[in-house]
């Protein structure tokens, strides 16, 4: 507990608030109180990853005084700066600052510190341990409470503790860089450890050195965090089978990136917690422009690919009226060439699909790679659909292949009852094309197998992942897929939706595309 009077003094003295007109020329007119000018910069991209700064001030004994949360949405808003003053000219002041840089909107309810380090053990598919809510500490004076109701979500925030000593009559500055490597490494307020420059590494907070130079830098380091490696490999050009059948096997090159993995449009939709976001760094890669087609699979067999199990074979036409004797009647693969060579291959097991991509020199995409291409690559901000779209605006039957089921709940794009089932990848190319890269069929057509085991994003498997190239690499019968299939109704058609499928049960709704290294 503390006296409210001293608490108020510090509140008034922190930052260039209207209470203390302390900025610019008027600084010179202030009495010579001790001051530390805190200059905060980040090397993260602004505003894509960092667009707000949260500043919390505690006493050296961890009594929480004040909290400010400020939009800093332009590179020119950085470095941000504010001053901490001593309340009188006789004694030193020691404060603990907590600085958090994070993207707009990425907050959770404040229910106490709930510090949780990255898990290292435990069932990969169990939820990562979260300390129970304590609702402590709080900002309380005798008169009123100003504890914020939310705080930056730890997985998307750079979280830094700084200890400052302000000496009477001395003016100096402290320069803090909120380092990109520290995003997702939560500071431990109780034990005063914090990430400074190395991911998942907390060091004890020491008194921050200050310098006499009070000049503000004119440039920011925003955007200099080194992750954007160019894709230097040569993407495969469109190939043809021996008889001239197009294989739809061309690739596009994706530069390395850093992005927010997880999406608001997935919020509350999957089995558990689709919206728990994290920052992911991806090295450059190449990705197939189209889903792997029947013709491409057949061509691979001719050239020596030997899968553990063949795709389910269906030598009959797909019944367009949707009267099925079995799911196999929806499968596109045929013994001999029919009119479905340009259909996405489906009805394959996970092992065969992955073997196909590995035989082609790569692998299945990770979920993070897939989401980046579908929702983020080639545009300044995440969009709900590969072609862009807007919140609250679903896909239409012209834009993607979905709603082609036979039941009233899933036939919205099969109203005449004669358009059941899968179609050529060329149909997806009419609308379901990603911005920038031009990748086809990620919204609809078939759901696409991923390299990851299926696990909610709040599990140990995901919480253990590093920033660079995260994926849930566990043996499991349930595998992840993304993208809707032709049978799903519009209310389920959005690429943020996380899905799963059993590894050894082929389905006409699940297909694949492959990735290869980009270097």
């Amino acid at each position, binding site marked *: 507990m503390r006296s409210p009077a001293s608490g*108020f003094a510090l*509140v008034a003295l922190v*930052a*260039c*608030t*209207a*209470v203390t*007109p*302390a*900025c*610019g*020329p*008027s600084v010179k007119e202030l009495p010579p109180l001790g001051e530390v000018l805190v200059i905060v910069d980040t090397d993260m991209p602004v505003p894509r990853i960092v667009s707000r*700064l949260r*500043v919390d001030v505690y006493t050296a004994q961890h009594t929480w005084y*004040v909290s*400010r949360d*400020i*939009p*800093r*949405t332009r590179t020119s*808003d950085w470095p*941000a*700066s*504010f001053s901490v003053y001593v309340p009188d000219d006789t004694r030193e002041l020691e404060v603990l600052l907590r600085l958090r840089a994070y993207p*707009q*909107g990425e*907050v*959770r*309810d404040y229910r106490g510190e709930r510090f949780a380090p990255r898990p290292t053990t435990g069932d990969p598919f169990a939820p990562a341990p979260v300390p129970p809510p304590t609702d402590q500490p709080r900002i309380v004076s005798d*008169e*009123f*409470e*100003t504890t914020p109701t*939310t705080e930056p979500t730890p997985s998307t925030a750079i979280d830094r503790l700084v200890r400052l000593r302000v000496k009477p009559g001395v003016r100096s500055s402290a320069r803090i860089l909120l380092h990109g490597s520290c995003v997702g490494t939560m500071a431990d307020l109780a034990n005063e450890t914090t990430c400074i420059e190395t991911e998942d590494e907390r060091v004890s907070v020491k008194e921050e050195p200050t310098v006499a130079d009070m000049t*503000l830098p004119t440039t920011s380091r925003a955007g200099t965090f080194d992750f954007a490696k160019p894709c230097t490999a040569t993407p495969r050009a469109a190939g043809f089978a021996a008889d001239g059948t197009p294989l739809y096997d061309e690739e596009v090159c994706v530069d390395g990136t850093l992005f927010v993995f997880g999406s*608001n*449009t*997935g*919020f*509350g*939709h*999957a*089995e558990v*917690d689709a*919206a*728990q976001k994290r920052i992911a760094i991806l090295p450059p890669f190449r990705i197939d422009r189209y889903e792997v087609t029947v013709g491409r699979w057949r061509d691979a067999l001719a050239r020596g690919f030997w899968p553990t199990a063949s795709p389910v074979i269906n030598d009959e036409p797909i019944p367009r009226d949707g009267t099925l004797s079995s799911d196999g009647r929806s499968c596109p693969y045929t013994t001999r060439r029919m009119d479905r060579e340009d259909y996405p291959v489906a009805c394959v097991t996970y092992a065969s699909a992955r073997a196909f991509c590995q035989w082609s020199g790569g692998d299945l995409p990770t979920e993070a790679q897939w989401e980046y291409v579908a929702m983020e690559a080639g545009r*300044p*901000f*995440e969009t*709900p659909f590969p072609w862009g779209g807007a*919140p*609250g*605006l*679903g896909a239409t039957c012209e834009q993607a292949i979905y709603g082609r089921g036979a039941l009233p709940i899933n036939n919205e794009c099969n109203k005449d009852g004669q358009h059941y089932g899968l179609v050529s990848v060329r149909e997806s190319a009419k609308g379901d094309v990603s911005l920038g890269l031009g990748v086809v069929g990620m919204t609809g057509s078939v759901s696409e197998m991923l390299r990851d085991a299926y696990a909610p994003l709040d599990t140990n498997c995901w919480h253990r992942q590093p920033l660079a190239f995260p994926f849930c690499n566990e043996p499991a019968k349930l595998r992840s897929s993304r993208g809707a299939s032709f049978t799903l109704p*519009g*209310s389920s058609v*959005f690429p*943020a*939706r996380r899905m799963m499928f059993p590894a050894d049960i082929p389905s006409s709704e699940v297909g694949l595309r492959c990735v290869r290294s980009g270097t």
Partner: protein
Amino acid sequence: MRALRHLIVGSLATALAVVSCKDEERVVTEGQLLLYVDTDAPVPSGPGQRPSTVTPLFDRLRIDVFPPASDTPCPGCTNEFEINGLVLGQKKASFGIAPAFETAGYRARVRMFKTDFAAATGEPNADSTIDVTVALPPVDATNKREVSVFLPVESVGQPRGSLADPVPVADGALDRSRVGSWPGAQRVDCAAPAPEGAVCVPGGAYWMGNPNAPGFTPAGYVLQPRLVVISPFYMSANEVTVRRFRRFAVAQKRWTGSSAGSTAADWCTFTAEPGPWEDHPVNCVTFEEARGYCKAVGGDLPTEAQFEYVQGGLVGNVFPWGRDEPTCTDAVYGRAGWGTLATALSPCKPAVPPGSVAKPGEGVRDRLDLPTGTLVDLAGNLNEWVRDRWNRIDEACWSAKLHHDPFCETTSPSDGNLAVHRGGNWSDIAARMIATTRFGRSGTQADAQTGFRCVWPAVPGR
């Protein structure tokens, strides 16, 4: 050189940029316009200020200055600031603008908006922005001219002035700030006696709808932000139970006695004679049955606006408790998975059948504490019928940007005559519990996922 000086938009030493001090260095003192900004809207409390009892409606100000005959701002002439009660309440929201001397035709566009509704690009959402474009008077080389612009809440979503036809500024500095004085925003207590089992919901203003609401919903299901003023009302603390409903029951679907869920009616809670579900909420009721009950007890169903107001914790939260995605103990949802619902997405599927509606108040965070009591199960347990007819966002009922106690009675031209339910239910996913999610459906469709609660007026004569 002077001609090139037409630019600075910077806050003065005491003004808006609260953390960064960089802007102040550019302030010029002579030959400039000082533009003061004021509003009657409630804004967030400043640091050290007592938290307001009134919900803040705006938190950001953007100013663009346009040179004569140009419809793009001059370079460096766009600026944005966080606003709060310290800045506005002390008349300190001012901008120095240094146009070319003795030149008419400069205009300033001043927009006040809510950061949460802005597009990813930072562009304000037009429906929820107060947008005033003013003509700036010429200045000469020696004077500092003070002018002011007022941003009235009543003009939200309806721009005043345009670049082609700007409105005049008021001459002189502000003599007082009117921040927070808009009557619609005031918390108003109930003035009538409380019906039994009802809780007073104080009146106030909130944003209904949110373009950036999390979760994916089909077109038209989430409203663009509409500023809504709600009069105080009384609301049932919980969804109406079987015990209370029985004496008003009309021909009812009955609980079949099976708990396997072989038919949808197996999850209906009503029994003609007192049975195992007495204190569970009643479900399997049509819109008319639900409304009939509420009228019989002297009230009515809540309006969509009333329901979203409480479901968002009176402040436009995602859920009654805030914005965390729920766990299975936080609210009653995702509990299907048995019988005919075996294939449902079910994060909270119970270990044994049937998986069904819970007694009131089981969700530990699905509650809203108010001065005279607590409302429970606003997000989960049962969908709840509301009084309105369904209208899409772009249809007549919701076209205005500011509403007072809205109630939609017209049929949707696109979707026909549909009733509306709000809130999520025991069998569905968490996304359906988001406060801004709405659902239009036939009012005659009674199902095991939908129940209701009632409201009563709390202002005499209304």
